[in-house]
């Protein structure tokens, strides 16, 4: 499946194309089965795809960012869009790293993006509000939820996607920045405890929060 934040990125890319023209390329680094993700992206409006295919590439933000930057630097682009993070390992790093490697401006956690006169104005979501950032193009953006509403692909689009070009190549290998030494399950919370039903339980709750849990 497409990572949810990348779905916003793809949708934003397709909407920009619909409004301003141009072309949307999707880039995926992953194994053979990533082809399914690519076909879905092509059905959702991307024009072509690059598949950096590897079954053994390290699942590591620095390594991935370097391999992506290597590929992107040979491409011409105005806008690079990334999900702000993968919802599997939540690293929150690749977009910024690729941008730094390429030397392009990067605005993260974007909830609103407008283009005009070769410039972009992005709102990035921060604690308590948003920061308004203007940047020259080319530039990169990482997406926050609610940037846009992803569309669904029709059957016809799914079929048509198979005719769109997918350029398959091997990513250049990079050493990982992180090494997992141990994986453990998080300590379990104590099993839940129902203290009562309805309004009668309310005084009990307040007493427990104060005397037992000591949090109020």
């Amino acid at each position, binding site marked *: 499946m497409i990572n949810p934040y990348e779905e916003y990125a793809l949708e934003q890319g397709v909407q920009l194309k619909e409004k301003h023209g141009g072309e949307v390329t999707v880039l995926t680094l992953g194994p053979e089965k990533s082809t399914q993700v690519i076909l879905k992206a092509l059905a959702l409006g991307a024009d072509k795809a690059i598949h950096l295919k590897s079954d053994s590439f390290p699942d590591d933000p620095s390594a991935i960012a370097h391999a992506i930057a290597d590929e992107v630097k040979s491409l011409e682009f105005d806008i690079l869009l990334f999900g702000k993070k993968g919802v599997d390992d939540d690293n929150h790093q690749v977009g910024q790293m690729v941008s730094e490697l390429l030397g392009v401006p990067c605005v993260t956690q974007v909830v609103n993006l407008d283009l005009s006169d070769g410039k972009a104005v992005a709102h990035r979501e921060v604690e308590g509000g948003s920061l308004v950032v203007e940047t020259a193009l080319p530039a990169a953006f990482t997406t926050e939820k609610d940037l846009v509403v992803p569309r669904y692909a029709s059957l016809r689009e799914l079929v048509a996607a198979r005719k769109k070009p997918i350029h398959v190549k091997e990513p250049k290998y990079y050493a*990982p920045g992180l090494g997992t030494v141990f994986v453990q399950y998080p300590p379990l919370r104590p099993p*839940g405890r*129902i203290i009562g039903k309805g309004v009668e339980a309310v005084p009990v709750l307040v007493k427990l929060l104060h005397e037992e849990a000591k949090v109020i």
Partner: protein
Amino acid sequence: MSAPVLVFAESFGSRFRRAAFEAVTEGRRLADITGAEERALVIGQGLKEKAGELGKYGADRILVADDPALALFHPDYYRQIMLEAVKKCSPSIILIPATSTGKDLAPRIAVHLNTGVASECTQLDLQNGELIATRPAYAGKVLLKVKINGTPKIASLRPNVFTAKEKSPPSNPSVESLTFEKPDSRMVVKEFVAHVSKKMDLTEASIIISGGRGMGGPENYKILDELAEVMGGVVGASRASVDAGWRPHSDQVGQTGRTVSPTLYIACGISGAIQHRVGMVDSKVIVAINKDPEAPIFSFADYGIVGDVFEVVPALIQEMRKFYGKT
């Protein structure tokens, strides 16, 4: 003496964030283990006089970049200052709060220092002198213990997980100014637009009252607002209620929203699906109010009340008013 621990003491609006104090406290702990100094880096405007506050949490030396252009986070400016601070003190470890600023900044500097970042850590350990960072992944289903290849080791710390502790006696840190010369940048940070409600961000709140699908509609959140007001808390929401348009995304707790770890989390009309659970399971105490006794949230809430939120919450408001003496 080993190389220092460098901590980015983040600020906003000329005051330090609590996450800065948490990071400085943790940095002190690590520095004590390795016998190193702790340096704190302050970037912002109007903070020079307040920089000494960081001594309370154990910083030995403070580097300050103070300039009107630094009042709001600018990636290119902050990156330059951070890299300059690193050059100055060659740290072994860099700690950064995992706030919107910290999460943006950490990977940027990592690229320039040719090292890795452990993001949103919930625990740090030193094993034989090596930093081992614990971080949740896969919707909180596992904890990864990772080491960082490269030096310095960079870790971002999830806010509200580490405890800010004042040291007794406090350090008496020296404060050194860093010169800031605006680098060329193609980005202009125009302004900060506050959310209309001006409420505290969920990640910084110690009491959160959250509402889910069971709230029935946006107008019904006023009882949660009232409870939050009585208890000094902040109102959050589940994905279902945000997707329904009842609450803004900035209120969302869960996998595609905020990850919170308050002292007390009261879930009202929230079933407790995995997407929600991952965002709040590290709360110290969880209370659930739900009319469905089979709701998954009851399997991990410390205190559950089976009942209608529209009866239980008003009763709770009354009881809390009595408790806090606000009748």
